[in-house]
C-alpha cells in the first residue's frame, strides 16, 4: 500500500509538474488528439479517489467503514454524466473548468485548516499525515494542469474563454445560510464533495473518450488553428464562468 501510494504520488507529481510547467510556459499542444489524449489521461488519473479523497479522509479521521459508507456524493452537487454529455463541447469545458475552480478553492480552504508540523519538529506519528498533506498539494497541481489543458482545448475548439456560454446549471438554488454545522459535518461535507469531484472527473473522462471516438470531431479541427500568442499565454479567465456545483464548501 505505501508503495502504491508512493507510485501514485510520483505519477501525480510528474503529471502535475508537466502540465503546470506547460501552463507556466504558456504553451498549448496544437494537435487536437494530443491534447485530448492528455485530457483523458489526466481525467483518468484524477478520478482515482486515492489521489485526493483518500488522503483527505485519512487526515480528517473519516477512514472508518461507517463513515466511508456515508461519504457519498450529494445529489445535485455536481452535474451528472448525462448532463455533461448533453452539453456542447465548449459548455462541457466551461462546466468542467468551473468545477475544478471550485475544487481548488475548496482545497485551499482545507489546506488552510491543516497546520503542518512546521518548525516545531515533526513527531513520527505525524509522518503519514505529512504524506497525505503532500498528496493534497499534488492534487492541487494536477487540477491546475487539467485546467490549463481545458483552457488549451477550449482555444483549440475556437471558443473565446471570455465569451460567456451557458453552462450546466445545477438544479435548484443555493440553500440559505445555515448556522455552523460543526466540524464533523464540515468534514463529512468535504468528503461528499470530493466524492462528487472524482465522479465528475470520471464522467469527464468518458466524455473525452467519446470525443476521441467521433471521427468527424477530430477532422473538424484539423489542421489545428494556431493559437494567438497572447491567448496561449493567457491564464484561464474567471470571467464568464458560472460555478456549477451548488454545494456550500466547508471553510
Amino acid at each position: 500500500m505505501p508503495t502504491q501510494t508512493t507510485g501514485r504520488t510520483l505519477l501525480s507529481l510528474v503529471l502535475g509538474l508537466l502540465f503546470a510547467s506547460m501552463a507556466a510556459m504558456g504553451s498549448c499542444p496544437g494537435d487536437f488528439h494530443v491534447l485530448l489524449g492528455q485530457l483523458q489521461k489526466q481525467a483518468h488519473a484524477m478520478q482515482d479517489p486515492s489521489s485526493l479523497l483518500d488522503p483527505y479522509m485519512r487526515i480528517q479521521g473519516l477512514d472508518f467503514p461507517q463513515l466511508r459508507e456515508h461519504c457519498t456524493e450529494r445529489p445535485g452537487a455536481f452535474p451528472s454524466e448525462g448532463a455533461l454529455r448533453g452539453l456542447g463541447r465548449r459548455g462541457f469545458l466551461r462546466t468542467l473548468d468551473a468545477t475544478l475552480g471550485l475544487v481548488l478553492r475548496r482545497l485551499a480552504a482545507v489546506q488552510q485548516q491543516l497546520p503542518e508540523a512546521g518548525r516545531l519538529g515533526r513527531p513520527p506519528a505525524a509522518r503519514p499525515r505529512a504524506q497525505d498533506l503532500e498528496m493534497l498539494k499534488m492534487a492541487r497541481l494536477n487540477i491546475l494542469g487539467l485546467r490549463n489543458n481545458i483552457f488549451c482545448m477550449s482555444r483549440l475548439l475556437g471558443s473565446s474563454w471570455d465569451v460567456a456560454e451557458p453552462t450546466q446549471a445545477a438544479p435548484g438554488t443555493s440553500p440559505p445560510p445555515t448556522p455552523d454545522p460543526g466540524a464533523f459535518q464540515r468534514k463529512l461535507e468535504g468528503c461528499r464533495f470530493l466524492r462528487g469531484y472524482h465522479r465528475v472527473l470520471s464522467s469527464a473522462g468518458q466524455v473525452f473518450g467519446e470525443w476521441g471516438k467521433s471521427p468527424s470531431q477530430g477532422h473538424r479541427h484539423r489542421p489545428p488553428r494556431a493559437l494567438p500568442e497572447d491567448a496561449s499565454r493567457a491564464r484561464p479567465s474567471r470571467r464568464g464562468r458560472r460555478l456549477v456545483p451548488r454545494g456550500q464548501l466547508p471553510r
Partner: protein
Amino acid sequence: MALFAVFQTTFLLTLLSLRTHQSEVLAEHLPLTPEALKVSVNSAQQCLHLQWTVHNLPYNQEFKMIFQIQISRTETSNVIWMGNYSTTMKRNETVHWSWESELPLECAAHFVRIRSVVDDARFPEWNFWSSWSSWQEVNVQDSTGQDTLFVFPKDKLVEEGSNITICYISGNIQNDISCYLEGEQIHGEQLDPHVSTFKLENVPFIRKGGTNIYCEEKQRKAISNGTVLFVSKVLEEPKDFSCETRDFKTLICTWDPGANTALDWSKQPSQSYTLFESYSGKKKHCEEKNRCNWQITQDSQEIYNFTLITENYLRKRSVNLLFNLTHRVHPMSPFSVQFENISATSAVMTWKVHSLGDYFTLLCQVELHGEGKMIQHNVSVKANGKYLLNELEPNTEYVAQVHCADDNHFWKWSEWSGRDFTTPEAAPSEAPDVWRTMKSGSHNVTLFWKPLSKFHANGKILFYNVAVENLDKPSRLEHRSIPAPANSTELTLDGCSYQIRVTASNSAGASPAAVIVVSAAPGNKEIEEEIIEGTEDGFSMSWKPQSGDVMGYVVEWCDRPQDPLCDFQWKKLGPNTTSTVISSDAFRPGVQYNFRIYELSTKRIAHLLERKTGYTRELAPSDNPHVVTNNLTSHSFTLSWKNYSTKSQPAFIRGYHVYLKSKEEQCQPGAEKAVLPDDTVCCQYKIDNPEQKTFTVENLKPESFYEFLVTPHTSFSEGPSGTFTKVRTPDEYPYMLVHVIVPVVICVVLLVCGCLLKSQWMKDKCYPDIPDPYKSSVLSLIKSKENPHRTIMSISDCIPDAIEVVNKQEGSKIQSLGTRKSLTEPELTKLSYLYLLPTEKNYSGPGPCICFENYTYNQAASDCASCGHAPVSPEAPPSQWGLLTSSENLLKALEKNYMNSLGEIPAGETTLNYVSQLASPMSGDKDSLSTNALVPPPCSEYKMQMAVPLCLASPPPTENSDLSSITLLGPSEHYR
C-alpha cells in the same frame, strides 16, 4: 450549688430565646435574599455565568457574605450541585460567579437559585440565611430541529487526558441510536427518553483534525450527526532554556519547545512564546518557537532575569532564567589560523580571536591530529594566539585546530577553526631489517629487506644501497643501488666470506646500515625436520642454543609455500630468546609451513640450528590416491599408488586404509571389518607407513568380484569416501589348461619331429612304393620271351569308349565289351577291373572330363566332384543331379543308389566301390557305344572305383606314374 446551676441554665435559655427572636425580627425587616439573578450561558466553555445583587444591605459599607448556590438539572428537585461562594459586597453591588458544567449545557435544562448570609463579625445579628431566590431556568436546547439528532458538545477543545461527557439529543427520533468514537461504539446512560450521555475518561490525542464522535440510527443505517472532540496535546514547559551572547550586543535565548499543540480547523494555533525580562520590564513576543533574540542595551545591564512564557488556549507555562551576562559569553570561532617555521619535527601555529574587550581573556585549546593520534594544548589568549607544536614526526600530515572560551567564566567553547600542514622529510632513523637466502651448492645469495615503517622511514624511501665487502681478501667495495620499492636483490658471490651492508635512503639522507655476513663455509649440516603443531594463532616453537656466542636468532619461513615466489619471511630475535610464536595473516589451514631457525654469531654469521614443519590446522585429505591394479590373479591382486605425494597434502599422512568389499562375510587375516558412512560393511586393511604405496590383496576367490578403495589417513581423519573400484578375479581353468595343453603340444611336436626324422622308415613300413610294372623284372622277362617289338600304348594314342570295372572272381572271367586280355592277366584276376562306359548319344554336357584315379589309394568320391560334374548313380534320375552338388549329398546318393547296386556284388568279392567321373568320350566314339545295364545317366561319365585293401591293392603308383598308372582301354580292350 444546685440552685446556682438551675439559675445559670435558666439564664442561658432566656438569652437564646431572646437572640432567636431578634433574628426573626431582622429577617423580617432586612430581606437579604439575592435579587436580580441573571444566568447566561457559554456553551463552548460549558459555563453558567451568574450575576445578582443584594439590595437590602444596610449601610453603605462592605459586608462579608456567603452565598449558597444550588444547581438542578432537568428539574428543580434534581439538585446536582450546591456550594457556597464567599465574597464582600456593598449594597446594590452585582456579584458575578461562574459554574462549569461537566455535561454540555445543551444536553439538559438547568436551574439555579441562591441564598445568602452575612458572615461579618461586625454584624452578628445578620448572621442568618436568607430565603432562596426563585429558580432560574437555563435551557440552551435548539428546538428548531425536532427531527434532528444533535451531539454535544460541538467541536469542544480539551486537553489530552481530560475527562469529558458528551450527549446526544434525539428529539423525535424513535429508532435505536448507536454512537461511535473513532469507529468504536461507545455506551452511555440515558438522561431522559431523548438524551443519552457518554462519559469519556482520559481522552487521548489522536490527530490534529480532532477525534470524531458520531451517532447513527441503527434502523436507517444513516449517520445522524456527530461532533469532533479537539484534543490538544498538553502544553509542555520549555526545556533547556538558555541565553548567551557572542558579541555583547545580542542575547540569544534558545529552548526546546516540545510538542506542537496546534489543531486543525483553527481550533487552536501553535503555542506562543513570549520573553519577559523582569529587571527592565521588557517583553518580547518570539517569532520562532525555539529561539528568541534579545537586544542588549547600552546601559550595561549585567544581570538578567528572563521569564519564558508559553501558552495556548488551554494552558500557560513559564520558565525562569537568571544570569550574569558576563557568565554567558560564547566566543566566536578564531580566525586566520596560520603555520610558521614548519620543520620536520616542529611548527608554530598562530591565530586571531574576536575581541571581547580589554578585560576578557580567552582560553584557547589547540588540538593536533596526526598519525591517528590527538594531542591537546591549552593557551591563554588576549587577542592573537600563538603556539609551538613540537615533537612532530617528519613527513607527516597534521591537522591543527583551535577553539576558545571565556577564561574567567567558562561557558561554552567556540566552534573549531583549523588547518592542515605537513612536516618535511628527515633521514630514515632505523636500519632496514635484512636477511638472506642462499641456494645450496651455489654462491648465489638473495638479499631481502623489509620496508621501513613510516615512523622510521621519515619520508618516502627512494632507493636502497647495498655495499658488499670481501672479508677474505682485500678488494674494492661493491656498491649497488636498488630503487624502492624493491625489497630484494640477488648477489653472485664466490667462495669467500662477505660482509653486506644495506641502507635505505630518502630525499633527506640515508638510514643506518644493516650488516650481514655471508660465510664462505655455510656449514649447513643435515638437520632432521621436527613436526610442530600450529594453532590459529600461529606456530609456537623453541630451540636449543648451540653456542653461547650468539648475537641473535632468525626464524625464516614462507608465507605461501605453495607459490613459486613463496613470500619469504623472517623474524629476528634477541640472543636471550629461545622460543617464539610465528604468526601471520597469510597462514591458512591445510598448508604445510616449514621453518628454519638460524643462530647469528657475533660475527653476524648465520648457522642453521633447527628445522620445524607443521600446519596451523590439519585438514582431512581432499582426495584419495589414484590406484593402479597389478598382478591380477585368481587369488590376489596388487594395488599401487606410487604417484601419490604425501608432501602436498593438507595434513601429515600417517598411512593408508585399504577397504575391500566382497561377498564374503569374513575378512581375511590382517583385515578387520569396518562400517562405511553409507552403512555398508567391508574389510579394512591398515597401512601405517605413508611411504608404502603398494598393497597386495590375497586369499581371494577366483571368478569373484571385489571392490576396493584406498584412502589416506592422518592423525585425526581419513580421505574422502570415494568410489570403490571393481576387480574380478579370473578363472583358474585356463591356467590348468596351460599346464596340460602345453606339455601335450610339446609331446605332439616332438612326436611329429620324430616321425619326420624317421619318415623313410615309416614310409617303408606303412606305405611302401608301388613297383613300376615297366620296371618289373617280369616284364623284362616277357619282353625277352615273346614279341620283342611289342610296346606299351601311349595314353594319347587311344580313345577310350568304355571302361568297366569287373570284379572278377578268382578264376572267373569278366565279361567285357572287348575280349582283349590284360597284359598281366594272372594278377588281374585278383583285382577289380575298371570299365570305360560309352556316353549317351545325345549327351550335351560340358566338355570332356577325364579323371585320373590312383586306384591304389582310397579316395573320397567327393574329391572327384571337383571335376565339375556331380556324380550320380547310373540309376539316379536326372532330376537329382542338381541336388547332389555337395560331397555330402553325393555320398548320400552314393550310399543310396550305389550301395544298393553294389549289393548285387557279393560282399566277399569287394570291400568298397566308388563312382568316379570320367572324361567325356570323344565325339567320334558316340556311335560305337552300346547300351546296357551299366549305362550311366546322360551328361556324365562315371567310373566305379573299388577300394582295395592295402594288402590286396596293387602297389601305389609313383608320382611319375600317376597318369600312366591308369590304363585307358579301348572299346575292345580292358586295361587296368
